[in-house]
């Protein structure tokens, strides 16, 4: 058995004891003797709710408050199934009962202010909540202002459906149902990085499956801001060829790379790109995105031109503001912005924090995994899976040899796994099983 740095830390911590550890670690000293550190989590999604569950499991003494604006959780993963008509909104909606059971306080409210000096969070409802550690798990902010004409009025007609809800996903499904056969569905793919890299291509597949069955004369125009299909390219192209005539004159999907939507016009029902105005019966424009608004309030949205939040890979603490941690889509990392990664980084942060609260050094060699399925719309699916491990030379988390890859081909078995993953990740995240 090899003796790595982690074992060394563990062993020397055991030998030296917590008292001597004070000289090595500021955070460990801070928490020794602190019986119930106050942890405030903003956002009860795949990152925040998972973090809260596992911190309370691994360090029950933590006093955890979770602030979440929504009364119920609606899953973005598998929400494209709703657009296809394969699932209902109920199928992707879950209660917060399990989360409420495990945390000390569940506050249904909007955060309006964060003071990282006084270490307080204020809410729209007039509450001021103090923290020792703050966890920001607010997902993404959609930048409507960057698309000309995509104002509040236009948003009543044009849905992004990139944050799943009845008002977005449910409304877009209703628009597709109301569209006549022979209609055109225009959808867009934002510039990377964005939440759920394969999501747009899965969406095109799902809507195609609905059209194939119910409206076979209809077309889908995919306006992609990126130079190429950004995720699972070979698998999506194979599925589009196999099921939807891609590459023939009768292709249901018209894919256009380097076509970033610059404007929307609901009077003419067009999406403007650099090249032309594309007319559709149903428009689905997903604007560019950045880390959630709360990250701006906390002053941690400093990476990548002020769009994402740089974090320490061991603790997911902000590299610019002390005692503020960022999970899931908001973090600037080399991980894909997926539900699985948000869930796993929630556990990693809970692990690091429970170690610090126990007066120990956090694990210096963490592991993060991603497993992400996409459906074709025809009862089959495929995956990308990756394990990221700490590489001391690169000072980053990278996949070891053989620990990253995609399916060979679509399969019914992987569709069954995808649906099983959905149940398990929702149960795991929301403490429902």
């Amino acid at each position, binding site marked *: *058995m090899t*003796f790595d740095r*982690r*074992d*060394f830390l*563990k*062993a*020397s911590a*055991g*030998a030296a004891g917590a008292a001597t550890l004070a000289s090595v670690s500021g955070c460990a000293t801070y928490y020794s003797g602190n019986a119930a550190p106050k942890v405030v989590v903003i956002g009860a999604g795949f990152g925040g709710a998972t973090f809260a569950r*596992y911190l309370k499991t*691994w360090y029950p003494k933590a006093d955890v408050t979770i602030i979440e604006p929504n009364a119920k959780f609606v899953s973005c993963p598998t929400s494209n199934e709703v657009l296809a008509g394969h699932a209902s909104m109920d199928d992707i909606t879950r209660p917060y009962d399990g989360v409420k059971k495990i945390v000390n306080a569940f506050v249904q409210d909007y955060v309006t202010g964060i003071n990282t000096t006084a270490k307080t969070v204020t809410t729209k409802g007039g509450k001021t909540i103090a923290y020792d550690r703050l966890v920001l798990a607010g997902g993404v902010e959609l930048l409507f202002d960057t698309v000309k004409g995509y104002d509040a009025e236009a948003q009543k007609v044009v849905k992004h459906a990139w944050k799943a809800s009845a008002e977005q996903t449910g409304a877009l499904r209703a628009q597709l149902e109301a569209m006549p056969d022979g209609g055109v569905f225009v959808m867009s793919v934002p510039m990377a990085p964005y939440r759920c890299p394969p999501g747009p291509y899965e969406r095109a597949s799902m809507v195609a499956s609905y059209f194939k069955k119910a409206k076979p004369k209809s077309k889908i125009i995919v306006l992609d801001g990126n130079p190429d299909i950004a995720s699972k390219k070979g698998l999506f192209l194979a599925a589009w060829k196999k099921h939807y005539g891609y590459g023939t004159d009768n292709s249901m999907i018209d894919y256009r790379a380097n076509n970033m939507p610059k404007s929307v016009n609901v009077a003419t029902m067009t999406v403007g790109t650099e090249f032309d105005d594309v007319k559709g019966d149903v428009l689905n424009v997903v604007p560019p995105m950045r880390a959630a608004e709360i990250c701006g309030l906390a002053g941690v949205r400093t990476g990548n031109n002020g769009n994402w939040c740089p974090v320490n890979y061991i603790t997911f603490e902000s590299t610019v503001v002390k005692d503020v941690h960022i999970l899931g889509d908001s973090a600037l990392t080399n991980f894909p912005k997926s*539900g*699985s990664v948000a*869930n*796993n980084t929630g*556990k*990693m942060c809970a*692990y690091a924090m*429970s*170690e610090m609260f126990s007066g*120990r050094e956090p*694990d210096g060699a*963490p*592991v*993060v*995994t991603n*497993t992400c399925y996409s459906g074709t719309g025809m009862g089959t699916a495929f*995956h990308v*899976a*990756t*394990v*990221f*491990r700490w590489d001391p030379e690169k000072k980053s988390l990278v*996949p*070891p*040899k*053989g*620990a*990253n*890859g995609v*399916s060979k081909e679509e*399969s019914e*078995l*992987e569709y*069954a*796994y995808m*649906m*099983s*993953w959905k*149940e*398990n*990740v929702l*149960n*795991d*995240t929301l*403490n429902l*099983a």
Partner: protein
Amino acid sequence: MQKKTIAVGLLVAGMLGAVASVQADPRARFMAANCSYCHGANGKSAGAIPSLAGLEVKYFVDQMKAFRDGTRPATVMAKHANGYTDAEYLAMAKYFAAIK
């Protein structure tokens, strides 16, 4: 100097190992929790993905090695098996075996 510290550390780690159960080992339970977004919290799965709770230690370790070698065909598991060490297979195996 460093060698001496490691030697002392090993001695103490060995003593601790005798009393601490794998369930209480923070790294082992974190590693096991990584599996749960697919295999269910505490290794109890809903649907087509197999549960891991209660699997025998040897069976678990053998399957991970077979996924890694390619002797057991897999969808996602070859990638996951390549991401962990043999010692980690064993730690996770013990964790899941202890769940009833």
